[in-house]
């Protein structure tokens, strides 16, 4: 850092502090005088981050000292840029509208609870044998996609540029050619295996850069000046990459045998989720409550079905009544759920049998799982939830229950969810979702010139309880009607804390975020114009009598209900959640493809005329296990229809 002083005007005692990530004294009056009181002094800056401010202190005074950067290209990039892959960088660099590319990328970085990087990395998708048919990730598709990006990059660099600084930035800036090359080199060095593909990408990248033929127009940087900067840059880049890659290749020679050995025999078994875990003692540690033969047969069935699920999308278990399908199914569901990173196994049962399955799970844990106990997640403490011996389960009688259970973080998420059949097809209505819709409509449309809606925004808390059918909710809180105003002004993510801080009754407190993440995500793409228009009709004052107010609120509620239904249909059809296994009890209901249950397992082609729940379970499961004891009486087509439902497995074959 170069500091300039006017020695004649310096006070007796002073200090300069650099304020950034840390506070560090750069220089003080004593140090400066020891250095001979120079007019221009240089101070070493050893940290990797630049300071944000320089604070000067003298006597009782202090002020900020302006400072400037000699070469902006040397500034360290924002730390969050580290998350950007080489391909993301290429997309931004090649984009016709880099601003839109930035926004697209940053949105993709927003945390999503249905993705857990730690867990997902345990099963890299391109190494998963069962995912080998996902064409989008095949080498051919990857190469074609990158070729398109590189072609766009070349076109982008060939565009007229208006000054040397712009060109320098394109080459050496935050997301410039040099930064992309560096990121590609890093990816090559950290690539598992030989890194051949990463090396090919680097070579392609350099070839495309070499083919660039700048096309100036009047007023832009002339071609000679462009080439005067670009060509030396490219030569330097190629030389540097060549050195780095040569070093890496030398290091690789020693690893060659290890790589081959790894690929031929010692590859970790990524499909271990289809092996029964040690604690499952069904059939291996016999008890006196059931015939030994039954226990051994059930063990064989568990092992056999798990083995089949390695290579096929589903299995129908059609044992007769009394043979223990429930225990077999729970053994399989437990085996898959405790090891899969994809979330809970879902057991879909008729609503009247939910309680029976819960009881069976308790018995199953007691008899067939060593040192494990069942734990209902609803109402459980954090300590109970994180107990390794807990088999966490939840019950979802409505689709919103399922969404909330799926929102939980992996460390506290259910192993098993009992989902009542029909839950996904039932029209969902929830006051919190309605509140979220209203909040988003007011946020999006209640500004600028929307004067009526702005007025409504200020008064709506007075009538909100009636509108969302939550009368009495505010009286439970310390804030009264203002509770609604506070919630509307806050982000949905903070509603749980705000509400829990406001309600007096402990029993009323929310155990979970009231609006599922899937709903929050879908809100952004929903057309809320009709709701905004309807909200303008909301009363501003409590005049005209209760009947008049109720009439106006009812009219708005009708529109709200319509939009809520639409939202819910879209949420269910498009929500991005995954489960390793669906266990479907009474699966013979699937023999009619037009039934609500069957439609839930089918992909939907469009969101038009979507019936609530259609496609809600399509492509969400890695595997399915169907249980039925009812014979297929009308012919083999009934069985075929049921088998067809396995097409809803997220298999991506072909």
């Amino acid at each position, binding site marked *: 850092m170069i500091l*300039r002083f*006017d020695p004649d005007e310096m006070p007796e005692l002073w200090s300069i502090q650099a304020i950034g990530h840390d506070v560090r004294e750069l220089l003080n009056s004593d140090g400066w005088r020891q250095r001979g009181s120079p007019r221009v002094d240089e101070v070493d800056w050893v940290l990797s981050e*630049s300071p*944000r*401010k*320089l604070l000067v202190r003298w006597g009782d005074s202090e*002020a*900020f*000292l*302006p*400072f*400037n*950067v*000699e070469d*902006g*290209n040397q*500034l360290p990039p*924002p730390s*969050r*840029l580290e998350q950007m892959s080489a391909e993301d960088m290429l997309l931004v660099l090649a984009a016709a509208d*880099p*601003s*839109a590319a*930035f*926004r697209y*990328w*940053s*949105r993709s*970085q927003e945390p999503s609870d249905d993705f857990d990087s730690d867990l997902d990395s345990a099963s890299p998708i391109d190494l998963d044998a069962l995912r080998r048919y996902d064409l989008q990730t095949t080498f051919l598709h990857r190469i074609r996609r990158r070729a398109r990006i590189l072609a766009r990059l070349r076109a982008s660099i060939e565009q007229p540029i*208006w*000054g040397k*600084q*712009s060109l320098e*930035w*394109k080459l050496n*800036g*935050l*997301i410039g050619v040099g930064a992309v090359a560096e990121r590609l080199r890093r990816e090559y060095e950290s690539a598992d295996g030989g890194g051949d593909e990463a090396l090919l990408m680097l070579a392609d990248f350099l070839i495309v850069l070499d083919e660039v033929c700048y096309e100036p127009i009047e*007023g*832009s940087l002339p071609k000679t000046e462009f080439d005067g900067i670009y060509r030396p840059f490219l030569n330097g880049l190629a030389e540097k990459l060549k050195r780095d890659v040569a070093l890496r290749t030398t290091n690789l020679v020693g690893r060659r045998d290890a790589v081959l050995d790894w690929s031929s025999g010692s590859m970790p078994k990524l499909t271990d989720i289809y092996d029964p875990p040690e604690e499952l003692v069904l059939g291996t540690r016999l008890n006196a409550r059931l015939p030994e033969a039954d226990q051994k047969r059930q063990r064989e069935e568990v092992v056999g079905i798990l083995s089949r699920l390695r290579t096929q999308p589903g299995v129908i278990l059609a044992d007769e009544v009394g043979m223990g399908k429930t225990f077999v199914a729970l053994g399989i569901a437990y085996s898959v759920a405790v090891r899969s990173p994809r979330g809970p196994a879902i057991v879909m049962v008729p609503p009247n049998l939910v309680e029976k399955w819960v009881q069976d799970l308790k018995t199953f844990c007691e008899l067939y799982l060593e040192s494990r106990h069942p734990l209902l997640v609803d109402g459980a403490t954090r300590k109970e939830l994180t107990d390794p011996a807990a088999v966490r389960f939840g019950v979802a009688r409505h689709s919103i229950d399922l969404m909330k259970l799926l929102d939980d973080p992996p460390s506290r998420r259910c192993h098993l969810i009992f989902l009542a059949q029909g839950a996904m097809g039932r029209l969902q209505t929830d006051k919190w979702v309605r509140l979220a819709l209203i909040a988003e409509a007011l946020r999006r449309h209640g500004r*600028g*010139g929307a*004067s009526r809606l*702005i007025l409504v925004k200020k008064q709506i808390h007075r009538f909100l309880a009636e509108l969302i059918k939550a009368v009495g909710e505010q009286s439970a809180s310390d804030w009264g009607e203002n509770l609604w105003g506070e919630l509307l002004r806050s982000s949905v993510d903070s509603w749980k804390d705000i509400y829990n801080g406001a309600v007096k009754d402990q029993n009323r407190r929310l155990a979970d975020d009231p609006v599922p993440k899937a709903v929050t995500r879908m809100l952004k793409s929903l057309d809320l114009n009709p709701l905004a228009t309807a909200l303008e009709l909301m009363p501003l004052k409590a005049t005209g009598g209760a009947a008049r107010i109720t009439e106006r609120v009812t009219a708005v509620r009708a529109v709200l209900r319509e939009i809520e239904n639409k939202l819910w249909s879209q949420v269910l059809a498009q929500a991005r959640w995954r489960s390793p296994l669906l266990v479907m009890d009474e699966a013979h209901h699937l023999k009619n493809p037009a039934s609500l249950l069957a439609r839930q397992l089918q992909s939907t082609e469009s969101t038009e005329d979507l019936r609530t729940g259609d496609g809600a379970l399509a492509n969400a499961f890695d595997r399915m296990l169907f249980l039925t004891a009812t014979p297929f009486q009308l012919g083999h087509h009934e069985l075929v229809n049921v088998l067809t439902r396995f097409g809803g497995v997220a298999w991506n074959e072909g």
Partner: protein
Amino acid sequence: MNSVWPGFEIESEPDREDLACLLERESKLGSVYAGVLVDHAMAGVEHSLRWDVLPVRIRAAKQHAKLSLLVWSRHVRVIVASANLTDPGYRTNYEVAGVVDLSPGEANLQLLAEAVAFLRSLIELVPGAAERPPEIRRATEFLDKTESTAASWPPMPRRGTIRQQLTCTLPKADEAHPARSSLTEAVEACRRRVGSPNEAWIASPFFDPDPKRSRATEALCKAMARDSKRKLRFCVPSAPNSGSTSSVPRLAAPKALILSAKLYEADFKVEMLPQLDADKNPRPWHAKMLALQSPKYSAMMVGSSNFTGAGLGVGAHHNAEVLIRRSGWGRKRNSTKMSRQQDRCYQRASFPPPTAPETTGA
């Protein structure tokens, strides 16, 4: 800011897309030269390191000018505004700006030369500028390049008797560069054409705090024609309600305005500037405007000068200020056209004017 910086607008929303906004800002600033000449008392506060900050130091006064010079390869835009480079300045306040575009087809080279000269004057007021440190070199190179870019563009033909020029307030640099006063320059321009103005409109958010004497009003009255009644229109903001139960609005201006006007026997009116927009959102008034008129002359100045001695350059201390002056004279059509433009600028002032002296307390 996006309405005045085509090609440089930040499209991401800072509140909702902070990461995209950060990357976009860094990216856009990285590919251009950007420098800001800021009063030394405000310099060094947290800012992007991708633009140069040049602290301007004026003893007993401040760098208050808001002049933006945006340069493309085939376009130059000069913006003279009342707005600071702050969020309130570009998003909330009532502000006013004059924009002049220059291109190879038409270039007001005189105005560009005035803008560049003004910026060079400010650069000289940066401590240590004489030693030519890198940030000073970058700034002067930018100005040199701007001048050379536009040098070959054909100058704009003069259109009748309407002119657009800059007028400045600056402290004295040396004997060869005496102090400048925006008020004096504006009045002199009027006198050169038709004589002294007899009517003035003033809109300003701030005034000198002296309750007995307004140096700016006195200087204005002295500069105005003596052969006819001087007319003054003060447009001032209202004072925040301090709990008074009186229905009479209080104005955020010193009584000295009308005391000084009375001293010079001027016919004056005081009008209240709006503080709310059409949607009743609070919008503090920060625009500064001064209009001078006579039967055959009309000039409107917008820019940074508050109606203060330092702002107009009529006191002991001179700020650095810049205003854009658009004037018309001679044929009645031109001065009437200017007057209409002036009316449009002032139309936000509310009526009727509370002229009673008791409403004009500071």
